[in-house]
């Protein structure tokens, strides 16, 4: 009888121990590792997949041009399955086991704040390429996405000029939505308007009936939406079902980033105003050439090259420039090189790294949704990340490492 228990326990121990078998690192001596930590399954994969596609294209283009520093680039792609624990695990894996030279990853601000400390601790360079609420001040990371000062600061005055001064705000209930809604309030008030109410919704809420009634009761001139994710898309459907898409205009800081304008019908989305760095119909030679290469690689009927996907492409290109200038992939050297004012001519226009904040100076455009397409109305050149530079100066305080929640 002891034998059975013996067998059971030693079998168990063997199983447990065998998972610890040391696998060899998969990086050869003449390769440079690039880590990608994105959600490729689960609720957030609509954001993640285009980002990884663009990163793949960028790496292939670089390898076709001879690689970096004479070495080939190798992509380590981790699917975090919309699960925070996986973000932590894969960040550790990228840094410690696969020993990549840089990580491009993180989609929600929550996921960014999970992997940033891990990568910092393990001295791995980190690029966060998603638009977000601003304020991260960290010498070990670079943020290439747009921040509220760049987008909301242009969107709100444009919308208020067009529609009126009374604004109702609805936002996703996590730090992106919370902070962005504060920025909306600031810009509304700066422009002489008033905010009727700010309502927050956790990411899995799908019933907006009472909310819609509340909005109607408030009689605003416009609605500003910072809703995020697939569940929140039902707001737009229910809004249209109640016939309000035609009655009360809407501007959004997040719409179309998940290709909502393609999923929803024109009746549900036409007329929405947005403001981002990249739109597919930006009329420049770089963008035309990029689209040709992209569609050749991924097919003519790829739904839409999203803002986040372009952010990832541009983020990679910036990193590559930094490596070339530094002549090495060592984090200290690349950081110094990137801080010397590197810029690229991306498909969205010129993108420059701001040394003091590690954010980007780039073009933004206000656009309107029409018949499943996004039509650019006005472009603003080279917008600086003033929200973050108001609180963060890495030149003066290189040891600074936190996210400033900007008090508005």
């Amino acid at each position, binding site marked *: 009888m002891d034998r059975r228990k013996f067998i059971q326990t030693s079998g168990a121990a063997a199983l447990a121990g065998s998972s610890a078998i040391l696998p060899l690192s998969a990086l050869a001596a003449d390769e440079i590792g690039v880590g990608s930590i994105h959600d490729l*399954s*689960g*609720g957030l*994969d*609509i954001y993640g997949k285009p980002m990884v596609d663009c990163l793949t294209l960028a790496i292939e283009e670089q390898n076709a041009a001879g690689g970096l520093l004479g070495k080939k680039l190798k992509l380590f792609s981790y699917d975090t399955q919309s699960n925070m624990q996986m973000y932590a695990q894969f960040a550790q894996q990228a840094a410690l086991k696969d020993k990549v030279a840089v990580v491009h990853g993180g989609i929600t601000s929550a996921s960014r704040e999970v992997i940033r400390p891990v990568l910092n601790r393990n001295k791995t360079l980190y690029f966060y390429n998603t638009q977000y609420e601003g304020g991260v001040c960290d010498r070990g990371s670079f943020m290439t996405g747009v921040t509220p000062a760049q987008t909301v600061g242009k969107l709100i005055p444009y919308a208020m000029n067009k529609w009126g001064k009374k604004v109702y705000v609805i936002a996703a*209930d996590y730090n992106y939505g919370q902070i962005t809604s504060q920025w909306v309030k600031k810009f509304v008030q700066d422009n002489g308007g008033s905010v009727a109410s700010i*309502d*927050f*919704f*956790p990411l*899995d*809420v*799908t*019933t*907006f*009936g*009472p*909310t819609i*009634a509340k909005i*109607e*009761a408030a*009689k605003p001139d416009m609605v500003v939406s910072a809703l995020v994710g*697939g*569940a929140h*898309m*039902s707001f737009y*459907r*229910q809004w*249209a*079902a*109640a*016939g*309000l898409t035609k*009655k009360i205009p809407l501007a959004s800081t997040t719409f179309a980033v*998940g*290709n909502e304008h393609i*999923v*929803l*019908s024109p*009746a*549900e989305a036409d007329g929405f105003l947005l403001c981002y760095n990249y739109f597919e119909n930006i009329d420049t030679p770089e963008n035309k050439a990029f689209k040709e290469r992209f569609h050749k690689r991924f097919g003519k009927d790829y*739904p839409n090259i999203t803002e986040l996907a372009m952010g990832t492409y541009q983020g990679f290109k910036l990193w590559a420039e930094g490596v070339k200038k530094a002549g090495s992939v060592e984090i200290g050297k690349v950081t110094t090189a990137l801080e010397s004012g590197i810029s690229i001519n991306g498909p969205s226009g010129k993108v420059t790294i701001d040394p003091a904040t590690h954010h980007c100076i780039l073009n933004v455009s206000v656009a309107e949704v029409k018949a499943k397409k996004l039509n650019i109305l006005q472009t603003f050149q080279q917008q600086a990340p003033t929200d973050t530079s108001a609180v963060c100066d890495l030149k003066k305080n290189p040891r600074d490492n936190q996210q400033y929640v900007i008090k508005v």
Partner: protein
Amino acid sequence: MDLAIIVIIQVLYAVAGLVIVSAGLAVIFGMMKVINLAHGEFMMLGAYATITAHGLGLNLWLAMLVVAPIAVGLVGVVLERLVIRRLYGRMVDTMLATWGLSLLLVGIVTSIAGNTTVGVSAPLGSFSIGAYSVSSYTLVIIAVAVVLALAIRWVLTKTSWGLIARGTMQKPEMADALGISPGRVYSVTFAVGAALSGLAGALLAPLTGVVPTMGGAFIAKAFITVIGGGPAILAGLVSASGLFGAINQLGTFLTTPVLGEVALLFTAIVMLRLLPQGITGRFFKGSL
């Protein structure tokens, strides 16, 4: 005054929503004492069936009311034969197996359809009550819930099939002795329950985005409603939906959607503490 009407409509809508969402689970649990945790995924399959059929050109109403229930009903038959049949009487095991099935279904649909949210627009436009616009589809949901409840009652009390089903549910050995195959009755019942779940998913498709993971949002509420309702299928379903739906929606109106949810959940706990057998364990005893 307008607002009061709106609130009443929204409350009825929430109750109707719960009735439709929980009906399939109520039938399966009430008749077979099987807790089908893949219920949310049956709804998801119904929604996808609707979208696909509609995408192929079929009229939306046909896709919702005919194609979806039939498609999911067939899936239900297959799953019952393969998996559920072997686990009758083992309530905990069926819960676990159906949980596994739900993960499996999500995985399969994700592999086939990807994770992009799809959907259709809500038909029928809107109408006004004073200063408020309401979607006409809301009224459709309410109407369907009423028809559904009446239909279940009619089938179970006025048709011979209903009688056989109820008899088998109460005393399978007796039914067997009378020449009725309990296995066949269970199969059909499970299929009917699955079809109802598919119908629910189809009806909700225009209102919520259709993703492979959409089932997860409904399973908890449906589970709580059915258990809270107690042993009587219809009376339990209607009374529990009424109670929880009203509290949820009123809570949402008074505060926020989150607190409305919490109010619903909290009520469930309190109610189960006071009425451990569910509502119809104490009230409406002996009713259908």
